[in-house]
């Protein structure tokens, strides 16, 4: 367990989760990992081009051609390389789902999909650029590990951890600069929820950029005498079912918060676990089955109800249904 936001440590400046990618690649290459990184004409935004600086022969851009990139990645992986392939979450999986399905997932290739600009927090580019369905697509693939970091520290830990095994991973990163949650560092364990707060009245389960507002929601609830447990569910798949079951038994009410359609993401995975093992009232904070649109990202989070206030309200609704 890691303590979040300890006062003893100075608060690092906000950083986007995507900012972790380039430096992590360089670190891995320097540590001697046999990695190759691919980009598809978005390398300045993913940060993948950072590898080209010190390891030019280890980085390729294929142009705007995501389907081509994914099958190339699979071919490279078949020669024993650990392959990182990066694009935006709308284009990967959006533009190359079948290539991911057959060449990466069915062949169980050692390819780490780095999907930047996930969610509506992309902002002004609007609906076509905002992935609200990528977690649904990726969690539906057998054998795919699906993770969503809540800050740049956790993103770095995940990207490095992914190099330690030979399975396919989908790592969803984001565009906006976020406050750092893991100020003391993060030991990331695949498939393990990280409890950030304890409480017995309700459990708030969040991932990605909803983790920090969810911690704030727990603070607000605490002031009203409501004890909220907070779980950072950074691994959507394989889901930490034990943590969910325990939360249901011990707190009796669940809230899931995510920057994704309420259909097919973290909330759906948790609901499936609850329904099978320990039915309990559950509420969702997420995108209510509509596409995104243009606007400043903070205004969009308000518009779509992805806020601490929404989590507080959802917690009260869940508790009332006990």
């Amino acid at each position, binding site marked *: 367990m890691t303590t979040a936001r300890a006062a003893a440590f100075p608060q690092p400046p906000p950083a986007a989760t995507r900012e972790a990618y380039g430096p992590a690649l360089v670190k891995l290459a320097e540590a001697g990992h046999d990695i190759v990184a691919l980009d598809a004409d978005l390398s300045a935004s993913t940060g993948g081009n950072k590898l080209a600086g010190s390891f030019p022969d280890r980085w390729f851009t294929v142009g*705007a051609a995501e389907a081509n990139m994914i099958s190339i990645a699979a071919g490279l992986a078949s020669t024993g390389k650990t392959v990182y392939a990066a694009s935006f979450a709308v284009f990967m999986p959006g533009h190359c789902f079948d290539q991911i399905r057959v060449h990466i997932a069915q062949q169980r290739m050692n390819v780490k999909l780095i999907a930047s600009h996930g969610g509506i927090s992309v902002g002004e*580019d609007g609906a076509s650029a905002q992935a609200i369905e990528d977690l649904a697509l990726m969690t539906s693939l057998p054998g795919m590990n699906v993770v969503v970091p809540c800050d740049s520290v956790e993103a770095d830990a995940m990207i490095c951890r992914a190099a330690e095994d030979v399975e396919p991973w989908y790592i969803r990163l984001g565009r906006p600069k976020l406050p750092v949650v893991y100020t003391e560092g993060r030991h990331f364990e695949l498939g393990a929820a990280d409890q950030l707060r304890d409480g017995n009245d309700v459990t708030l389960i969040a991932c990605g950029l909803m983790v920090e507002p969810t911690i704030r929601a727990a603070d607000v609830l605490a002031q009203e005498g409501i004890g909220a447990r907070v779980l950072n569910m950074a691994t959507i798949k394989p889901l930490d079912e034990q943590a969910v079951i325990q939360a249901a038994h011990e707190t009796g009410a669940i809230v899931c918060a995510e920057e994704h359609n309420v259909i097919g993401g973290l909330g759906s995975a948790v609901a499936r676990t609850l329904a099978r093992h320990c039915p309990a009232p559950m509420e969702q904070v997420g995108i209510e089955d509509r596409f995104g649109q243009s606007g400043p990202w903070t205004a969009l989070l308000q518009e779509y109800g992805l806020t601490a206030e929404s989590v507080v309200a959802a917690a009260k609704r869940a508790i009332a249904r006990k």
Partner: protein
Amino acid sequence: MTTSAAPAADAEALLDVCKRIRRHIVEMTHAAQSGHPGGSLSATEIFAALYFGGVARHDPADPQWERRDRVILSKGHATPVVYATLAEAGYFSTDLIPTFRSLGTELQGHVVRNKPPGVEMSGGALGMGLSFAVGVALGHQLSGFAEDEGQIFVVVGDGELNEGQNWEAIMSASHFGLHRITAILDRNHFQNDGAGDEIMRIDPVGDKWAAFGWGVQHVDGHDVAAVRDALLTARARADAPQVVICKTVKGRGVSFMAENPAGWHGKGPSDDQLAQALDEIEAGLS
């Protein structure tokens, strides 16, 4: 009156329209502090020729006119040139332009069908426009349109041609004999990450298109009269799909953008840069 082309502007008027479109492009991306000025400025003459050169038959008062020509932006990030042109053509008030990319606006970051009226296809994911055009052309054929009705003009980016779907569409357009389709390539030699020749070579792009059975024309994409003439020629051809390859400069009309196209793919100018850009556009420097 919905059955003929809008009267074509004369040569001088076309140059003036180009200036107005360019002005809107830099003002819009300045107001939003985001958006894609480079690939909009490179396509300015293309849009001016289509809408003001008597090429596309359309009616701003009746955007849904069934037998209209359709102009499709496949490189769907270049919305500034589309919104500027549609506003100038009378599809909506230029007052809307400063709302570009703000919450609740009709003027979304990437094209959204019918938002505002006149936008024919949603986009933003590269590579889809030519396939959509194949569907529209098949539909127009089935509807029994006359040979010169319901033409389809598709503006494609050169970086966009990296996407394989384009070549599937190019193959099917000639296979189905869809002469109504005219592709217009904004050949500005830059894409998101920089120079296309370094990222993914597409040359000899004209020969490739020709090998797929299309008629090919090459034209200076900033000579608006030449672009208009090439498009009118393509429009009149009824034997095969046509492509007009427009040699362009990304950021054309604004010196600091044209000199550094890689830096101006997707961002808005500052206050000072806007002032300089407006001056240069007014002076017609390039």
